[in-house]
C-alpha cells in the first residue's frame, strides 16, 4: 500500500502541477472534484457567510450554478440574476451596480455552453477585486479553448470539468485562490489537504492532468484553426440557408462553437437527422440531458419560445477538417429544407416566397 500509495500520490501531484500551470495558479490552489457541477456547488454552497447572504450571478449560467442558486434562495440567500444583452453578454457596469455590502460572491461563467459567448471576465474580475468581493467563474467551457491566467484576470474561484477538454468523465477541479476560505462540501476523510473527502479518483485525476496539458499547450494555434472552421460554417450557413439567426456574440465566442436558430423547424428533429447522417450536434442544453424545456439561455437573449425550439449547436474540435465543415453545412441545408417542407409553420412562408 505504501509504495503504491506513494506512486499514486506522485501522479496526483503531477496532475495538480499541470492544472496549476495551465491556468497560471499555484499547485496548492488546485483541488480535484468529481465534476464541474461539484466544483460549482462547492463554491456557491461553501462561501463563507459572515458578510451576508447575497450572491450575484447571470441569467445564462449553467444549471450547476443556476439551480444551486435557486436552492440557496430557499435556504435564505438572496440572489441577483443579471440579464444579458442580445449577444449574451453580461455588463460589467451592471455587476458593479449590483454589488452591495452583504454581497459574498459574484459568479459569472467564462464562456457559455449553449451560445458560446465569452464574458468580459477581466473587467468583472477587476471590479470584484476593487470592491473586495470574491469572484467565481464557471470555466468548464473555456478551459482548453481560451487562454486563461487566473492571476491576470483576478479570478478567485474557477471551476473546470475534464471531459470538456478531452479528459475523462467524472472528474473536475476547482481553483481556490490562496487565502480564500470555503467550507468543505464533501465532508469525511482528509483527502485533498483536508478540504475534500473521498478516496481520490487517481486515474481520473491523471487523465485530467494530461488532458489539460495537451489542451493548453498549443492553444493559440488551435484556436486560430478552430476559428477558421467556425467562421466558414457561419458564413456558409448565413449565405445559403434562409431564415436563420446566429446566436451568441459574433466574435467574442468560443473558437469552435456555432449556434444557429432555424425558423419554422424544431431542434431535436434537426439533431436526429444530423445524427442519422453521422453528425453529432446538440440542441437545447446539452449538459442537462433529460430536460426538454426550451433553453433558458436562448430565452434570455431574447428569442421567442418558437425560435428557441429551432436552435442547434455545433462544436468543432482540433480533429475536424474544412471538408467536414462543408459536409455538415451541405447536409444541414438539405435537412432544414426537408423539415421545413414538413412544418405547418412554414406553409405560409413557403407560399409567400
Amino acid at each position, binding site marked *: 500500500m505504501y509504495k503504491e500509495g506513494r506512486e499514486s500520490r506522485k501522479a496526483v501531484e503531477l496532475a495538480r502541477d499541470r492544472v496549476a500551470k495551465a491556468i497560471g495558479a499555484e499547485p496548492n490552489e488546485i483541488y480535484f472534484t468529481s465534476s464541474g457541477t461539484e466544483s460549482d456547488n462547492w463554491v456557491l454552497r461553501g462561501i463563507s457567510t459572515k458578510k451576508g447572504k447575497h450572491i450575484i450571478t447571470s441569467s445564462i449560467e449553467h444549471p450547476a450554478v443556476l439551480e444551486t442558486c435557486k436552492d440557496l434562495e430557499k435556504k435564505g440567500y438572496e440572489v441577483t440574476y443579471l440579464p444579458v444583452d442580445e449577444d449574451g453578454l453580461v455588463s460589467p457596469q451592471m455587476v458593479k451596480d449590483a454589488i452591495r455590502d452583504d454581497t459574498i460572491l459574484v459568479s459569472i461563467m467564462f464562456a457559455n455552453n449553449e451560445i458560446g459567448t465569452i464574458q468580459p471576465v477581466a473587467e468583472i474580475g477587476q471590479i470584484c477585486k476593487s470592491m473586495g468581493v470574491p469572484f467565481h467563474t464557471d470555466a468548464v467551457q473555456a478551459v482548453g479553448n481560451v487562454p486563461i491566467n487566473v492571476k491576470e484576470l483576478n479570478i478567485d474561484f474557477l471551476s473546470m470539468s475534464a471531459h470538456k477538454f478531452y479528459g475523462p468523465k467524472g472528474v473536475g477541479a476547482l481553483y481556490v485562490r490562496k487565502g480564500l476560505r470555503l467550507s468543505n462540501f464533501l465532508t469525511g476523510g482528509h483527502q485533498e489537504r483536508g478540504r475534500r473527502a473521498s478516496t481520490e479518483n487517481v486515474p481520473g485525476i491523471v487523465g485530467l492532468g494530461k488532458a489539460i496539458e495537451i489542451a493548453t499547450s498549443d492553444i493559440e494555434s488551435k484556436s486560430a484553426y478552430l476559428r477558421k472552421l467556425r467562421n466558414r460554417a457561419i458564413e456558409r450557413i448565413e449565405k445559403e440557408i434562409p431564415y436563420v439567426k446566429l446566436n451568441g456574440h459574433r466574435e467574442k465566442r468560443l473558437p469552435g462553437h456555432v449556434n444557429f436558430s432555424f425558423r419554422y423547424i424544431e431542434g431535436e428533429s434537426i439533431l436526429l437527422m444530423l445524427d442519422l447522417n453521422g453528425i453529432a450536434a446538440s440542441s437545447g442544453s446539452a449538459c442537462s440531458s433529460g430536460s426538454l424545456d426550451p433553453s433558458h439561455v436562448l430565452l434570455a437573449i431574447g428569442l421567442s419560445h*418558437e425560435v428557441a425550439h429551432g436552435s442547434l449547436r455545433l462544436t468543432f474540435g482540433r480533429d475536424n477538417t474544412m471538408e467536414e465543415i462543408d459536409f455538415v453545412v451541405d447536409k444541414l441545408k438539405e435537412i432544414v429544407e426537408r423539415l421545413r417542407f414538413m412544418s*405547418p409553420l412554414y406553409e405560409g412562408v413557403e407560399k409567400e416566397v
Partner: protein
Amino acid sequence: MMYSEKVIEHFSNPRNVGEIPDADGVGEVGNAKCGDIMKMYLKIVDDVIIDVKFRTFGCGAAVATSSMATEMILGKTVDEALQLTNKAVADALGGLPPVKMHCSLLAEEAVKAAILDYKKRKGLVIDDSLAACEGCCDACYHKQDNEEEHEE
C-alpha cells in the same frame, strides 16, 4: 433519449407528409411555444378516410407519431379512427421514451381535431370527448414519472 428502430424509421421516411388542398377536415393542435404543432388533413368519402396528410413542427417522436397515426387511420371509418389512442400509436412504434409520451397524445388529439372539423362542417352530432386540445396542455411541461422538480 432512446428511440426504437420503428420511430427512427418513421422519422426518416415519414408517410403522408403534406397537405390536402380540398380536405374535408383539418385539425391543428399544440402550439409553437411548446415546441410541437401537428396539422392533420383528412379526405373523407362515405365516412371512410380515403386520404390523410400531415405537417408537424416538433421533435423526432412528434414526426414519427404523426406518420404512424396517419397510417393507422387511412382506410378506416371516422368512428374507427376516433378509437385511436395515443397508447396504440406509441405501441405501434415499438414504444416511446416516457418524456415523449405527450407527443403521441398530440397525434391522437390531431386526428380528433380533424374529425371534429369534419363533423362540424357536415353538421353532425359532436361528442364531448371530441373537444380537442387547443393550447398548451400539461403534457408540455414534460412531467416525468418521478418527483423531479421542474426547471424554469
